[in-house]
């Protein structure tokens, strides 16, 4: 039960961070990617703020040996850069550039609008399940 509450709390903080940083505004995201035109570097500060915070925090956290409520840190075991990683990321980037939504912001957007984000979230879930169907067949 504790792990469910901590996940809920982390989710709330994450959601507030996404709205405050305006990652939930597709125009802002597209202007960030529009380096040859209306470039808005703001989202670099979002990434920077997140990376600096986590880099420092992870050092202390991993030094603890294990998390407070679990027996192990669950980290990715795959270390090799492979074609799947690169092709998948290129496909994701093209969708991101097309609509200006990535997974976190589009879900957090459901907290205040239900038109476009709902269509994107449903399609995104379909995309995840489609990949699973294709990759296991």
């Amino acid at each position: 039960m504790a792990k469910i509450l901590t996940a809920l709390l982390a989710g709330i903080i994450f959601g507030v961070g996404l709205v405050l940083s305006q990652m939930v505004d597709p125009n802002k995201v597209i202007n960030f990617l529009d380096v040859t035109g209306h470039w808005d570097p703001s989202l670099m500060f979002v990434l920077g703020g997140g990376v600096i915070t986590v880099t420092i925090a992870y050092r202390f956290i991993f030094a603890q040996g294990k998390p407070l409520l679990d027996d192990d840190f669950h980290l990715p075991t795959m270390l090799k850069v492979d074609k799947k990683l690169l092709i998948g990321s290129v496909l994701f980037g093209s969708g991101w550039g097309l609509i200006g939504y990535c997974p976190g912001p589009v879900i957090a957007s459901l907290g205040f609008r239900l038109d476009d984000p709902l269509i994107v979230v449903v399609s995104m879930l379909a995309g995840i399940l489609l990949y699973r169907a294709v990759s296991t067949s």
Partner: protein
Amino acid sequence: MENFTPYSALAGGVLIGISASLLMYLNGRVAGISGIVGGIFNRSTWAEKAWRIAFIIGLVLGGFIYAHYYPVSIVPREFITTTWLVLGGLLVGFGTAMGSGCTSGHGICGVSRFSLRSLSAVASFLLSGIVTVYIVKQFVGA
């Protein structure tokens, strides 16, 4: 440069970082949204699904709470049709599942561990996003 908002962006980024740090410190989990969502559909235990669902509910709740106090207004982009949204959503879902992560899992958590896989993923999706926006602009002239 358009509507440059470095302070709110940095503050929001730090909040996202605090959330990711809490999730690792307490639960030992990477705060990667596409991975958390994907895991809900795995054949796994109820406990494994429950924390993921709780995090996603929190994400929506966070958006709701913020917008309740500070209304969010987003200018709609007229040329974006439902077909575009569906195609974009499919690409985002398929791509993050295939590439094992998105802007949060690779972009924040992975980069913070100096993971070569995450750094390669971030370079790929940033470049691909930039090229896509450039191509779209040639068509819609925005």
